[in-house]
């Protein structure tokens, strides 16, 4: 039960090539840079975009089946798919009250006005907006509109819930309210409506650019880039052992690719060598090397203070030299980037001041072995043969 899909969508030079399954009651978060195909994926699942090839199956109902180029597409129309969609904008019908908006779905499915209003009132209550039922959408704040929109989609007890950055247009406080609401509702789905047989809990996909959404709402996380899923798995694993620089940046980690050189040493592709306290994969394995920016210890500027004799050689593990490029404000202190290097460091402002770090200064950097995580590299490609 749940959602199962394989999709190939070509749009000009862009190709979406994705296969994934989401179980009933499960929530999958999809993270990825802009233009990676996340919204196209949702549109294809919802039946708004016809794939060049692919299958969408929900609870054993075949909703989309396109076998290949030139074949007639077979598909269940959008309104019979039992798939609900919510984007950045609530898109509440402006001519209807909040209650009428939420009652719209039940009404469209043939439930009479009185009962549909009853269902709608219960859902408005469930999103914490009892008392707002008779308001026009224009009289609601952005966060309230989004909560009514969530009530509206849940009131149809859909088989699949698709969210496309539902918190992106909200301020921090409202985003937090909506996130909490989604967490509660997704954890405790209501699967019965009066007069109808119970339905299975929805399979949920939430596209987001905020790692907090993934951490709080998702059972699993997928990372998409350039039309393919490059990593998918349990939220903890995907975020703590990122397979892509995008995922690493989301959780504010430095990620380098490398190869295991000896049982104790890993050589990164740029020549830096790293040791870790954990057990390394077999010699010759492709690995990912991960450490936090705050774990990078910056030594005093070499040109000014360090005598030449003690300058660490590039061969020393976990140590390298770099030229400071920019200093930027970070959450705790200052973020330092280096010329021609993807690694960033973070340090308290007073430390930066004390060490007189500035653009163009060459420094020596060091990471303790216990702060370095090394794990086999995840290499995934699209599933459908192109």
């Amino acid at each position: 039960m749940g959602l199962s899909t394989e999709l190939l969508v070509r749009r000009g030079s862009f190709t979406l090539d994705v296969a994934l399954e989401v179980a009933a009651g499960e929530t999958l978060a999809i993270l990825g840079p802009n233009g990676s195909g996340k919204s196209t994926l949702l549109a294809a699942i919802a039946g708004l975009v016809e794939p060049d090839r692919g299958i969408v199956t929900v609870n054993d109902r075949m909703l989309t089946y396109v076998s290949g180029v030139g074949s007639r597409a077979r598909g269940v129309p959008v309104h019979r798919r039992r798939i609900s969609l919510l984007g950045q904008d609530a898109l509440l019908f402006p001519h209807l009250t909040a209650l009428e908006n939420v009652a719209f779905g039940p009404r469209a499915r043939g439930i009479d006005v009185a009962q549909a209003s009853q269902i709608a009132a219960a859902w408005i209550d469930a999103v914490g907006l009892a008392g707002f039922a008779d308001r026009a959408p224009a009289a609601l704040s952005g966060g309230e509109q989004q909560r009514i929109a969530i009530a509206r989609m849940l009131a149809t007890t859909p088989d699949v819930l698709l969210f496309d950055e539902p918190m992106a247009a909200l301020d921090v406080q409202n985003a937090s309210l909506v996130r909490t609401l989604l967490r509660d509702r997704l954890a405790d789905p209501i699967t019965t409506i009066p007069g109808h047989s119970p339905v299975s809990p929805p399979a949920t996909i939430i596209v987001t650019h905020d790692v907090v959404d993934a951490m709080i709402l998702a059972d699993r996380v997928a990372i998409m880039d350039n039309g393919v899923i490059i990593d998918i798995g349990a939220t903890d694993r995907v975020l703590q052992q990122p397979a892509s620089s995008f995922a690493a940046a989301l959780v504010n980690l430095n990620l380098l690719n490398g190869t295991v050189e000896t049982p104790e040493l890993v050589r990164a592709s740029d020549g830096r060598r790293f040791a870790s306290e954990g057990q390394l994969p077999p010699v010759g394995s492709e690995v990912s090397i991960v450490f936090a920016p705050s774990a990078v210890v910056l030594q005093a500027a070499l040109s000014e203070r360090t005598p030449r004799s003690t300058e660490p050689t590039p061969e020393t593990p976990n140590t390298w030299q770099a030229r400071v490029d920019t200093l930027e404000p970070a959450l705790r202190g200052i973020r330092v980037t280096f010329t021609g290097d993807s690694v960033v460091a973070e340090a308290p402002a007073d430390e930066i001041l004390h060490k007189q770090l500035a653009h163009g200064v060459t420094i020596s950097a060091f990471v303790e072995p216990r702060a370095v995580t090394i794990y086999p590299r995840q290499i995934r490609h699209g599933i459908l043969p192109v």
Partner: protein
Amino acid sequence: MSANPQRLALGGVGIPRLLYVPAALGFALLVLPLVGLVVRADWPRVPAAIVSAEALAALALSLQTALSATALCLIVGVPLALVIARSGSRLAGVLRALTTLPLVMPPLVGGIALLYLLGRNGLVGGFLELAFGIQLPFTTAAVVIAQSFVALPFLVIAVEGALRTAGTGFETIAATLGAGRWTVFRRVTLPTILPGLLAGTVLAFARALGEFGATALFAGNAAGVTRTMPLAIYTAFNGAGATQDSAIALSLLLVVVGIIILLLLRSWRTTPGL
């Protein structure tokens, strides 16, 4: 809902004083003729002229045909606007250009064109007479067709604009909530474009009510059958059947109808929530 740039302007810098002169001239050009009409009217005889049998017949015919034409415009115009609004940009451009052609065409030309399409020897008219024995020209139906021809572009443009502004987002959401195409059209599309639809309807009605050129050529000027208000005014002014005084009285009546239409339009447009 979009940001109002005037909020930042803090009153603005004003306009060049010299521009007030042409502005006043333009305003005078629009308003003074109406003043002339009001001043020239022989007021004691206006009521009698308005309630004369001829005037009442013309008014009744005008209202009847203009309302029919407006209904016809709604029935074919809203679907046409939907098709244009939901077409690809190239097809929409072609359709829009052809739809608005009657706007830039002199109505007299429209009347001749209708005559050659629907007249006895016309493309469709010949067939209609042969197959069904129907003759359209110089009937009340011809008045309605002529009025629809000139009024339809106003409705289509207004509705199409409203549809484009509304976009397809609401319709998509409605479909994901389980609404079929007809339900979406009835419960989402139509209510969303209601202000544009009302404005377009009123404009089309006003245009149909004032239609003269196409009607005169295609429907003629038969009292009680095709003599609408504009044709009655023209006839009275030329001295056949009535005096110039009744032409003025009838004109005043049309001005009043026009003002009422404008006021209705204004109140609809400024109603909050629409």
